[in-house]
């Protein structure tokens, strides 16, 4: 059936994004992948952590960034500021901090990091504090010129960002985020606590994974198992902020009569699919018309993180490219702290359901990649409510053709 004029809203509102299908090639081409790494991931601001992960002076986090073949040390200095450095010793290039996985955490009372190879010590400003047998280094070696290699690091609303661009000066994080900050700032991110955190490696392009989470069209089919009583009632208030984008995802929540589910609803402090009353913690531009079917705000900070907010809950999906057909996905969920044991139990029930829904989401991604690589299709077709995906492709195209 052809689209009716009434059903088409976003294409009319944003004619600059066009109406045609989008190409498959960027999801299956190793060459385009390499361009994305060089022109996007090594040049733009990327969220790599939260302030609360390293709250104290001397706390550090090491984040592996496989796409750039590096890992980054984020360390809180004596001045309270978080700085980022490549995890590479200035002596003979060993990793200063031995990694335990994608993310490694540690603490140093003196706010220093020490390379295990020969014991070089660096402070939280990246400068060499001491190195054993310093007198045996030749006069041409200048300690002050051989600190850790810094990466641009800044923080917005507790989100720690880095920019790997080696240029001395890059666009500021504030300018990069632009008016996205006005829309998504002011939500009490810090007041809600990490509730659960999953990750997996998906054999698909990062955009296949990203795009699957960037629309609500799939809810009624993909989540018929875990959320049979939740129906998407479409998206509202699509807005673009330069490279970034947002929409309200609206959901009709019908009462769930299942016994355990009902008890969880009565005992919960926060859940994505439970109606809430009371004062709003949302910024004024989010759900401005106070729709009763507002589910959550789905926003994308280009290039690779989805930040969702609603009453009492926020969550993120992040996608780290590893190869043209391999992606690290990280899902993190934050809620009000459970104060009682039964609230903790209700949190567990909400977690299980949300985890299962994410297992449903991720189920399609490798099949999609396989099918795209068959070459059977050159284009994919988007419906009007998949406008965020369309915007994403336009932004990416802009970077690649720059």
């Amino acid at each position, binding site marked *: 059936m052809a689209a009716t004029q009434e059903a088409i809203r976003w294409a009319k509102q944003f004619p600059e994004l066009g109406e045609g299908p989008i190409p498959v090639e960027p999801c299956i081409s190793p060459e385009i992948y390499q361009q994305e790494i060089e022109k996007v991931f090594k040049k733009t601001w990327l969220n790599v952590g939260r302030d609360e992960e390293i709250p104290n002076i001397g706390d550090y986090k090491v984040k592996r960034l496989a796409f750039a073949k590096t890992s980054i040390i984020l360390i809180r200095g004596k001045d309270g500021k978080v700085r980022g450095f490549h995890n590479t010793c200035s002596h003979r290039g060993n990793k200063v901090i031995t990694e335990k996985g994608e993310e490694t955490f540690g603490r140093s009372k003196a706010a220093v990091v020490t390379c295990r190879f020969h014991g070089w010590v660096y402070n939280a400003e990246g400068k060499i504090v001491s190195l054993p047998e310093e007198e045996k280094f030749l006069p041409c070696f200048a300690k002050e010129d051989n600190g850790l290699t810094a990466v641009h690091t800044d923080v917005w609303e507790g989100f720690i960002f880095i920019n790997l661009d080696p240029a001395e000066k890059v666009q500021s994080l504030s300018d990069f985020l632009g008016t996205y900050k006005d829309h998504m700032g002011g939500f009490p991110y810090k007041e809600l606590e990490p509730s*659960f955190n*999953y990750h*997996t490696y998906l054999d698909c392009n990062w955009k296949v994974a990203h795009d699957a989470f960037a629309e609500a069209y799939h809810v009624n089919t993909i989540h018929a198992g875990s959320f049979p009583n939740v129906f998407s009632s479409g998206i509202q208030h699509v807005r673009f902020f330069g490279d970034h984008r947002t929409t309200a995802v609206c959901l009709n929540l019908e009462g769930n009569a299942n016994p*355990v*589910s009902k008890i969880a609803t009565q005992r919960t402090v926060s859940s994505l699919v439970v109606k809430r009353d009371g004062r709003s913690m949302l910024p004024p531009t989010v759900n401005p018309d106070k729709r009763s079917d507002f589910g959550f705000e789905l926003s994308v900070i280009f290039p690779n993180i989805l930040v969702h907010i609603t009453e009492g809950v926020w969550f993120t999906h992040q996608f780290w490219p590893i190869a043209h057909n391999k992606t690290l996905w990280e899902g993190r969920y934050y809620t009000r702290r459970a104060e009682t044991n*039964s609230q903790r139990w209700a949190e567990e029930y909400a977690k299980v359901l949300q985890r*299962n829904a994410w297992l*449903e*989401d991720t189920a399609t991604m490798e099949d999609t990649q396989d099918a795209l690589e068959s070459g059977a299709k050159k284009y994919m077709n988007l419906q009007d409510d998949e406008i965020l995906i369309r915007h994403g492709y336009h932004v990416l195209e802009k970077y690649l053709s720059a």
Partner: protein
Amino acid sequence: MTTDVLKEFSGLAPFVDAWSLATEDERRAKRKSSTKEELQAFYNAMLPELEKILDLADQYPKGKMPPEVDTYFFMALSLAEVAPHIELYSGNPNVPFSFTEERFIALHGQDRG
């Protein structure tokens, strides 16, 4: 008082060893390796006791229950793990139409409680 309440749960005794599991990783593995009938039997036994267990747990500060209460609280957490499979997935021990669960790593998977 606790002893009296615990007597009420004597019907759950056959399920304690299998289902009083402290971590999400253990609860997931147990649920996945169970049959539909085992999940149903555990669900049927637990459902009438669930609210009593939660009320008992709430007599203690969060995470600070005595071991004999922990035993039943962990079983309630197992019920949270199992319930969607009975209430939504027709008894299927796996999430239908899902990604391979073993590849989904929970950072918190070995936390107690």
